[in-house]
């Protein structure tokens, strides 16, 4: 096709780009503050956190000579490394002790094998006592028999690369061994269960929100303006209340000496000794989370239902459909877009929820995010937290993709 040109011979496309350039720059400048803000507070931290899940440079940085020396060592021979490696270890540790880096490495390696932390704390004193000219191998073996343990050296070799899949394996209840990747013994597996529980509970919460929210959204969309406005305020009221206040209110209501149990005992439904455990378990998480996430289901449903004229239901009935058939065949299919939007919103919020499960979940009702928070703030194993977070993010993206395949994301309507 012939390229169109302006009257003075400039290609039309070029001229359009030129004419729009100023506008584009101005538009970009307007959103620049937000863009920079998001970049600094959102994109960069997330990218950094994702990197931490595979970052393992601490081993090769603290023990540069040792890791190089270990490259030629084959653990399959079941022989301890040679004298040169021990010498390299001595040199590395001597420098590390001067810079006080050795305990950090100990903490890192302790995630993989408990005992490493104390070994490295102790080695600070041992290294300073070691003499030159004598075999370092013998001195190390004399200082602590862990230095003569093949497992210690296996660990060093396994974790000497700059990047590791160790955190991810641990997050999936697996472990690196010289014989390859293996699952942890049954008693030590926690994360897969936790992931499964998080997904299952989130699905359950989403389903509950849908079942409870659908009729309310219908009322909101179909009641006279005055009544529906009042109802809308009731729906939005939780939004205007602090999340902590709402969650604490559930504590007051649900605990064993709480309002609901008191009323049930007073009514004689349950005996005093048989008070129900409604909180600090999965039930507590379920109840509180459903309540908190309900508006996120109701609002998209409402905005979609509002656009469905009542004449559709009337038409269906005039054509001979019963109330139920009219609803199920005519009304419901038109609300699928709203259900999709509400469900995806509720589910994604639920799967990453932290505060409510923490406060009302006890030990059985916590989510994966509580574990992530634990690793961030208590165990300080940020690599593990990052790996768990990355898996959670991937999981959400995969579910989103599946959802797109089944329902179609273009069908999702927020209004």
């Amino acid at each position, binding site marked *: 096709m012939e390229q169109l040109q302006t009257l003075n011979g400039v290609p039309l496309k070029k001229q359009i780009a030129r004419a729009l350039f100023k506008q584009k720059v101005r538009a970009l400048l307007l959103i620049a503050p937000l863009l920079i803000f998001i970049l600094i507070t959102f994109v960069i931290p997330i990218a950094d956190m994702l990197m931490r899940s595979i970052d393992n440079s601490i081993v090769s940085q603290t023990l540069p000579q040792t890791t190089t020396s270990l490259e030629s060592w084959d653990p399959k021979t079941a022989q301890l490394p040679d004298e040169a490696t021990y010498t390299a270890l001595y040199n590395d540790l001597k420098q590390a002790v001067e810079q006080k880096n050795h305990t950090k490495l100990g903490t890192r390696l302790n995630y993989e094998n408990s005992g490493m932390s104390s070994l490295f704390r102790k080695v600070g004193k041992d290294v300073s006592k070691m003499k030159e000219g004598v075999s370092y191998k013998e001195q190390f073996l004399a200082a602590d028999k862990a230095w003569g343990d093949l497992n210690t050296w296996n660990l060093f070799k396994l974790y000497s690369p700059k990047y590791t899949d160790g955190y991810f394996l641990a997050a999936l209840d697996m472990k690196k061994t010289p014989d390859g990747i293996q699952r942890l013994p049954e008693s030590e597996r926690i994360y897969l269960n936790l992931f499964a529980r998080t997904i299952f509970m989130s699905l359950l919460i989403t389903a509950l929100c849908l079942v409870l929210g659908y009729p309310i959204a219908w009322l909101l969309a179909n009641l006279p303006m005055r009544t529906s406005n009042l109802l809308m305020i009731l729906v939005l009221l939780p939004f205007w209340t602090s999340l902590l206040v709402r969650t604490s209110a559930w504590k007051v209501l649900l605990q064993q000496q709480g309002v609901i149990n008191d009323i049930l005992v007073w009514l004689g439904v349950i005996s005093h000794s048989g008070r129900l455990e409604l909180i600090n378990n999965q039930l507590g998480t379920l109840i509180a989370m459903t309540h908190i996430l309900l508006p996120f289901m109701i609002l998209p449903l409402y905005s979609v239902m509002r656009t469905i*004229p009542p*004449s*559709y239901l*009337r*038409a*269906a*009935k*005039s*054509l*001979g*459909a*019963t*109330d139920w*058939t*009219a609803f199920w*065949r*005519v009304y419901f*299919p*038109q609300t699928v877009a709203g259900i999709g939007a509400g469900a995806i919103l509720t589910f994604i919020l639920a799967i990453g929820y932290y505060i409510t499960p923490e406060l009302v979940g006890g030990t059985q009702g916590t989510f994966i995010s509580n574990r992530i928070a634990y690793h961030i703030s208590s165990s300080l194993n940020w690599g593990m937290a990052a790996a768990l977070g990355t898996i959670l993010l991937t999981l959400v993206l995969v579910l989103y993709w599946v959802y797109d395949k089944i329902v179609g994301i273009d069908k999702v309507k927020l209004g």
Partner: protein
Amino acid sequence: MSQSQGTQPFVLFDNVQKSYDGITLVVKSFNLGIDKGEFITLLGPSGSGKTTCLMMLAGFETATHGDIFLDGRSINNIPPHKRGIGMVFQNYALFPHMTVAENLAFPLEVRGMTQTEREDKVRKALDMVQMGKFGGRRPAQLSGGQQQRIALARALVFEPSLVLMDEPLGALDKQLREHMQFEIKHLHEHLGITVVYVTHDQSEALTMSDRIAVFNDGIVQQLARPADLYERPSNSFVAQFIGENNKLKGIVKDLKGETALVEFTNGQQAEALAVNCEGIGKPTLCSIRPERVRIGSQAGMYATEGKVLELIYLGDHIRCRMSVYGDDSFIVKIPNAGDGTMLSVGQTIRVGWDKNDCRALDA
């Protein structure tokens, strides 16, 4: 009912009243009998209660008082889906998530018809509205006129004997609307169904209906055939609502049988046909159709003087606004006969009309 089937009309509204809020009556007292095969139009301005009456017949509103009979049975307590009444809605209400064919099959499906029966009927219904090729399309892929045909076909596919239409042509442009009016009329004649049609468009009502019920303020002002409604409006609302009318305000001076002597605001007097006069000394409104006024006096006609105020050239006729009996908005339609008789503004001419064309109505 004590009446036998033979004498009772197919649809009967018996003293029906409707109130939504318990304070005002939307429908004050509605009585209407519709015969089988009739095309009845409920005509009136918005808020006059015509749609409410239709919705009560369809079963979407309950009558506050009175009974509605369909084929001799009271249907007050029958839910809409059991009434078997076809309905065409103002915005068509075609189900957007179904194809055209699925839309048409829906009423057959809920009636438990087999697949082959359904396909056969859907095809026939689509052919009937000349939309045979569009079965696989979605309603959103059709134009307004095509959607309207599908809505019509869907209301007819399950062969109801009564079809209600709630301003079905309101969303179409003028040309398409006129075309569809004929199609609906032909379908009605061809299928022999009874149609209750609601509209606020008087020309639509005149074109299509066997009889028209003119609504205002919750009351049927006049129920008559189109020609009667236009020629012989029984009150001033109908006279003004149907077609164009000149309204001359005056006071009844004398009543002799069917003739009333009216004194107009400028003191002049004239005779008019007494249709709806309350009595001597009471105000009245004389209505004369613009096309019934003749220029110049002719034998057997009532004539008076008028001053030309404005002339509007409209091609086939000339609209002349003049001052007659003190009324400055008196319109005369002068046919463009091509004889070169042109009026000029400011000229005083004689205008006349048949005495029976000047109807003295309520004021």
